[in-house]
């Protein structure tokens, strides 16, 4: 009787030890699926902001993702005036105003197309629309384009580095 319960206890104890090993190996398995250091370190993108033309959307690349760069015209700026959400997203470099954002629909990650005539973005996947400052004008996307971490250095913009302007945007919930 006594030895029986001892055997039962030892069985459970053995099970527990085995479980520790299994969980330990799960940690290793999880870690093996993490992005590799070389992937994580994959550089910073530096953009020379003086080369863009007004109203002409240019797609740059940062960490494999498309980055929309749109230099906003005076007319667009006029339209944005008073729209706090749009103003908060504006990136000012010298006297120029830019929309810089990750060019992936915040719904499911398709790349919306820029419609030059309308000056806005249309996502072909599920019909979402964004205006020139990257805010949603038609659902399903839950929020405007995300803004990549950036740092302004004179006339250039370094993507991937956190500058004070971006930190402010993040703190205010302008971007994620």
């Amino acid at each position: 009787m006594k030895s029986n319960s001892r055997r039962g206890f030892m069985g459970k104890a053995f099970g527990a030890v085995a479980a520790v090993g299994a969980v330990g190996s799960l940690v290793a398995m999880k870690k093996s699926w993490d992005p590799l250091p070389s992937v994580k370190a994959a550089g910073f993108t530096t953009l020379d902001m003086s080369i863009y033309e007004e109203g002409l959307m240019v797609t740059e690349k940062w960490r494999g993702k498309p980055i929309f760069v749109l230099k906003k015209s005076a007319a667009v700026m006029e339209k944005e005036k008073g729209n706090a959400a749009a103003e908060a997203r504006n990136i000012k470099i010298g006297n120029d105003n830019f929309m810089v954002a990750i060019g992936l629909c915040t719904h499911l990650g398709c790349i919306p197309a820029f419609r030059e005539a309308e000056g806005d973005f249309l996502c072909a996947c599920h019909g979402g629309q964004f205006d020139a400052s990257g805010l949603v004008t038609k659902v399903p996307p839950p929020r405007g384009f995300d803004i990549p971490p950036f740092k302004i250095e004179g006339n250039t913009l370094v993507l991937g580095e956190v500058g004070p302007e971006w930190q402010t945007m993040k703190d205010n919930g302008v971007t994620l």
Partner: protein
Amino acid sequence: MAHFTKATSVKDWLNQRLAIEKVEKVMASEYWIPKNINFLWAMGMVLVITFALLVVSGIFLLMYYVPTVDEAFNSVNYTIMREVDFGWLWRHVHGVAASVVFLVIYIHMFTGIYYGSYKKGREMIWISGMLLFIAFSTEAFSGYMLPWGQMSYWAGMVITNLFSGGSLHADGLVEWIRGDYVPAQAFLGRFFMLHVLLVPLAIMGLIGLHFAALRIPHVNNQDGEEIDFDAESKKYLDGDKVGSKVMRFANDFMSKDMMVVGIFLIFFFYLTFYNYGFAMDPVNFDPADGLKTPAHIYPEWYFLWSYEILRPFNIDLGLALFGFAQVIFVFLPFLDRSPNSVPASRRGAFKYWFWGMLIVMIVLTAMGKLPPEGIYSTIGLYAAIIFIAMWVALPIITSLEKKL
């Protein structure tokens, strides 16, 4: 220790060691199947054959496929399609079988629903079948990544993004699944592993479970009749083959299976050689380009109905309902509260539920492919709501059902 005697024949030698005669009886000649069935009961065998076609063609593709983002597209479209002798055949068989297997799975599923083959001890058959459905879906999706065409890449992007959980914004989880910020080498490598090793292993295990689940409750029949298998099989063995309600699996039922398989294969090879376009989307013959979304992104046809449940709503509700649609079929045996285990045609309101569900899923499937605008998006929205409502209503209408 067992006692061995000098073998009188090869068969005897094997019999002493492996009990092959007993195995043959248990698996085939004395595995009893009701006679009151129709060709829909052969879908299991059709699925086995299709799975075998997938495994064999897959083995030959695997020998030349290169799972790297630079080489994958060319290894499929140049090496396999142009250089390997009959490589094109393996690829077309594999692609068409992957699509057709889902058609047969859906027929198999709706057969089970119609005849109530998930009730009265057959719950595990249904549940293991639904687990197989999930495993096959994973297999199909991971396989679709491998040619690394535009649709591979963008389907991979969209589907992995689902794991961000909408407003939960679990980007870390998405990046963990991909092993990168976007689908890239790590992503292709792990989906290749899933497709050729882990998921096929799971499928084979689940097929074993699915068959094992059939042993005790036996196969259902066209009228949901409860058969005394012991008495009926005794009748058969005593020589009254005509009077018995059951027959042997082999060769009796097997011969009918093979007849259906023969007809199925005519259809299958017609598709493979002359109408393969539906299974091999043109968009996927453009190499993957992370900076160019195709004009229309849609999954393969068999995922369309659940994809459409995702689309018309905002992201959080869409994801929740999508999750609901993915798992709800598993719970069918418990949501159907009726004690009647007979064909839907004799079950009152459930009859309408069955045909309604079939039609709603076809409508969802069609709307899932069409561009999400105007009337299509409205129809899709209503169909999705009806789909959800029908599942909510199922326990109610089945508990009101009169006991037969």
